[in-house]
């Protein structure tokens, strides 16, 4: 299982439309959503997710599938009355019934398979809400303690989960210092002046085994996965806030050097 598959798009420059993600003016601030973004240097790594109408798609096993199972509701077209759900019938029967002019079928389905920035940052294929970290911070913990409480919880939770594809959350620890030596899989958590956590990025040396990146990487909510500089996404008026706290990998047999 992998977050990424190599394609011709991998590590390309942003299209004009994608640059618009960063430069569009936020009506709440009258500044671009990411005022410090250097859109010529930000690189596209992967698309945001996959649409699928197939409830049994492997995408829905691999990623969090926003949406629901394909329910098909059968109505009497003439009276508008509900008749029943058809989902348990075989596809041929469903097609025959739904093609009958007396009936109308309403298909209640749309999947969007994706993971989010925090999922990407901690290496799990899940939509992990950064509000989970914020709640620890609002509970009176310091930023470092809040991040570590969150990481401890997720490490226990995903210890044996198939969602934990990188197994880095097990060894991630936040340090109180802000100057960290960048290593593969160092994580940066973005938060605003109200200590509200809004984003996570992960520094990667290589992706897809051989592709040298040596940059920060971010999944932008439901949107695309990019490589970037840390400052591209931060700032007083940035959607992700101006503050950053780090978490680094500390394994039992290896410490981490703070600068």
């Amino acid at each position, binding site marked *: 299982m992998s977050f990424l598959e190599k394609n011709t798009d991998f590590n390309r420059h942003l299209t004009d439309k994608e640059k618009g*993600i960063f430069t*569009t003016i*936020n009506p709440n601030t009258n500044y671009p*959503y990411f005022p410090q973004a250097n859109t010529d240097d930000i690189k596209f790594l992967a698309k*945001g997710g996959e649409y699928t109408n197939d409830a049994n798609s492997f995408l829905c096993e691999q990623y*969090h*599938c*926003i*949406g*629901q*199972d394909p*329910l098909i*509701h059968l*109505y*009497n*077209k003439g009276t*508008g*009355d*509900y008749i*029943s*759900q058809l*989902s348990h019938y075989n596809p041929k029967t469903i097609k025959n019934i739904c093609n009958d002019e007396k009936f*109308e079928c*309403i298909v*209640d389905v*749309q999947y*969007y398979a994706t993971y*989010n*920035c*925090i*999922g990407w940052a901690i290496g799990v294929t*899940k*939509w*992990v*809400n*950064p*509000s*989970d970290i*914020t*709640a*620890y911070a*609002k*509970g009176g913990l310091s930023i470092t303690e809040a991040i570590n409480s969150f990481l401890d*919880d*997720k490490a226990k*939770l*995903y210890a044996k*989960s198939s*969602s934990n594809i990188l197994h880095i959350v097990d060894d991630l620890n936040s340090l109180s210092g802000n100057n960290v030596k960048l290593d593969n899989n160092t994580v940066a958590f973005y938060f605003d002046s109200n200590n509200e956590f*809004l*984003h*996570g990025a992960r520094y990667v040396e290589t992706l897809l085994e051989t592709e040298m990146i040596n940059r920060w990487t971010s999944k*932008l*909510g*439901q*949107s695309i996965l990019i490589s970037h500089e840390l400052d591209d996404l931060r700032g007083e008026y940035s*959607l992700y806030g101006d503050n950053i706290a780090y978490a680094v990998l500390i394994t039992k047999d290896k410490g981490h050097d703070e600068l």
Partner: protein
Amino acid sequence: MTNEKGAANKIAGLAAKALKLQEMKEFQSKYAEVIKAYQESPLALLSTININELNEFQEWKQHLLDNKDKTIPMIISKMLKGDIFAFSIYKELTPHIIDYDMVHHNKDMNQELHYYGGAEDGLAIINARHWLGTKDAAEVFAQFTDGKNIECEVNEMLNINNEFIDCIHNF
């Protein structure tokens, strides 16, 4: 999760019956439209889904509130399957919200979130379960023929007790 999906389908059936064809078409169409608009907006860059900031949702919100008896069951049905968009909408329609702060301070809720995967889809399921135990739920289900039966059936499937509904003599 089989019970949650089964319960979700039962609730969706109730909602589909209540909405009838035209309203159901409008609901599904509007739901898809709002999600698409959200995904195409800069809000999609956020990891906390905040549908309340979307103009398309604001235009729809009053309709959802005015028709809460029919629309909430449809939203709850989606949430029971882990739909985090439906959860975002739910948060704008009801005061019964379990957030991460509550989860961190309540051992049972924390265990429940872990059981459902510990991420946002799990919190959506927990909130749907919680709503099914409220007075609101009892009142909404009571609006429909068979509503009480379905709520009792669903709550039994999900091992939920709603003190505002008498299910003992139901079966």
